[in-house]
């Protein structure tokens, strides 16, 4: 078997185990709720009988491990239960809200990689100079404020003070786009409507940038630190003595090996973005999982809380799996099946 394939299978198995662990953890957290979830869901005017019926329907009178059994059996059928808040299946709710959140997080991740890595390379190449120091300060500022503060500042500057970008939402109401993937950036292109695509881009620009800022800072800081270390290696000295241009040394010899440790951390940053998306969505009225997530948490809507956390964790695990594969592909020791790697 190809070594990368073997690694993929091992990591996928591990992720599945972790996901089961997450489901147990979140299930236990949700079941130690003080107060009766059925009573909270039905409100103070419900009769004792109604509450008893709902408790029965939710299996709340059974021991926790049996409740978990019911939950897993339902989950295997793709059923996460009914949200007590919207009275709809949790899967329907999530399917409605998740694409907007994912679109925002993917856009931010692209910004993080597209801006953070080049800034880090520049910083390391001109180490100690004015470019390096300015980039370091900007990167540190980026990681020093929560994304909702950046969201407020960007919104005031570029939507109110200089009205370049729209204030809120995903798309102007002038456009009617048939949802195919749920990702408006993709759907507008599929509909062959460049004006709508431009409109969607201008809507996503500010929230994505606010969400990405701390990731950009983190990526730049990491890349710089790793590259500075690599620059001290003898083979860089040798490349210089062979007369390779400084540009090629930075881009190929110093950056490539530094990318591997950076990638692992970028995977974790992606996770942080999935959580921070909640904050940015609240400021820009982005119709994603945020409002739903906070509402179900405040209402102690068990099924919806468990479903939301599970889906977000699964997304995170898949993203990390992809990062692991990228690392395996970038690392010749793993790619060619020498050494254990990992």
């Amino acid at each position: 078997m190809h070594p990368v394939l073997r690694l993929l299978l091992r990591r996928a198995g591990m992720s599945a185990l972790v996901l089961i662990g997450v489901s147990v953890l979140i299930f236990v957290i949700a079941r130690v709720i003080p107060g009766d979830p059925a009573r909270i869901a039905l409100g103070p005017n419900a009769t004792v009988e109604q509450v008893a019926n709902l408790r029965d329907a939710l299996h709340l009178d059974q021991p926790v491990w049996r409740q978990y059994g019911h939950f897993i059996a339902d989950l295997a059928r793709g059923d996460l239960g009914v949200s007590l808040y919207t009275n709809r299946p949790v899967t329907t709710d999530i399917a409605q809200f998740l694409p907007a959140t994912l679109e925002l997080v993917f856009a931010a991740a692209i910004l993080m990689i597209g801006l953070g890595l080049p800034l880090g390379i520049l910083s390391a190449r001109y180490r100690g100079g004015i470019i390096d120091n300015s980039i370091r300060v900007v990167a540190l500022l980026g990681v020093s404020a929560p994304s909702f503060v950046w969201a407020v500042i960007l919104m005031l500057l570029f939507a109110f003070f200089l009205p370049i970008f729209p204030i809120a939402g995903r798309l102007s109401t002038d456009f009617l786009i048939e949802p195919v993937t749920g990702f408006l950036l993709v759907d507008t292109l599929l509909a062959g409507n460049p004006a709508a695509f431009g409109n969607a881009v201008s809507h996503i620009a500010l929230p994505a940038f606010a969400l990405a800022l701390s990731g950009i800072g983190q990526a730049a800081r990491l890349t710089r630190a790793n590259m500075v270390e690599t620059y001290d290696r003898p083979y860089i000295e040798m490349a210089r003595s062979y007369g390779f241009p400084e540009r090629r040394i930075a881009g190929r010899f110093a950056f490539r090996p530094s990318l591997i440790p950076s990638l692992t951390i970028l995977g974790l940053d992606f996770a942080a973005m999935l959580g921070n998306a909640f904050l940015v969505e609240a400021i820009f009225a982005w119709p994603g999982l945020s409002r739903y997530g906070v509402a179900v948490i405040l209402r102690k809507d068990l099924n919806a809380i468990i479903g939301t956390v599970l889906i977000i964790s699964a997304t995170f695990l898949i993203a990390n799996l992809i990062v692991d594969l990228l690392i395996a592909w970038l690392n010749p020791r793993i790619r060619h099946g020498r050494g254990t790697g990992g």
Partner: protein
Amino acid sequence: MKRALAIIRSSVLSMIGVALVLLVVLSAIFAGVVAPFPDHRGAVVDFTNFNQPPHWPNIMGTDLVGRDLFSRILYAYRTSLVLAVVVLVLAMPTGVIVGLVAGYFDGFRRHALMRLTDVFLSIPPLVLAMSIMGVLEPTLLNGMMAVTVMWWPWYARLVYNITLAEREEGYVLAAEVIGASSLHVMFREILPNCIPAVLTKMALDIGFVILIASSLSFLGLGVQPPTPDLGSMVAEGANYLPDSWWLTVFPGLAILVAVFGFNLLGDALRDILGSDQ
């Protein structure tokens, strides 16, 4: 110590960091003396002077019920710092013990503890804290617990990695050969070598704990009114943008100043302690 001072003095950024941290810590401690309206930290209402832009004597303006924003920000620093210190004091030892045990012992204990750590690390931090806050009543104490639960795994990971490397070292073998108990080896031999990295991480973490805690209260899942808190102040003001910009901009900048200061200081400490974790 001398070297430490020299490093701090040689770098402008470290000096700025020290200054900002001192500013934040001192305003938190002496909030009662510095704040022009100390009683505005509580449930005070002044409808003759509400939602006013910055003017004398309310240099950062007043909030929706007429309280002085500057005074409330000073008291909010107190809330944030107490929270950050308590979280780190609880999370650090938990993580360190888990990391030491998992790193030192092979077999079942290691796998059980590290897989548990992985589970905690695979829920995005804010989402984990949010779901815990969903279960508990949103209070300052519960907020601290929620952030602690999401924080200890990072210390466990860090100490685990160091312990794995250290337990192969000669001094550990030597201690084992002369019959030292595993408790002795873990806590008296290996632990001291973890301390620089752990301290650096704690210094770098103060800013991040403040950041996460303010995010929780921004979502309404942390400190509750009338206790002043930077995150909930921003959330409250966000509905009144852009006209009442001071309601969000000043608390937001207050978070930025505090976290930026602690991050600069953390970077300086990392240089001093010479650890690259």
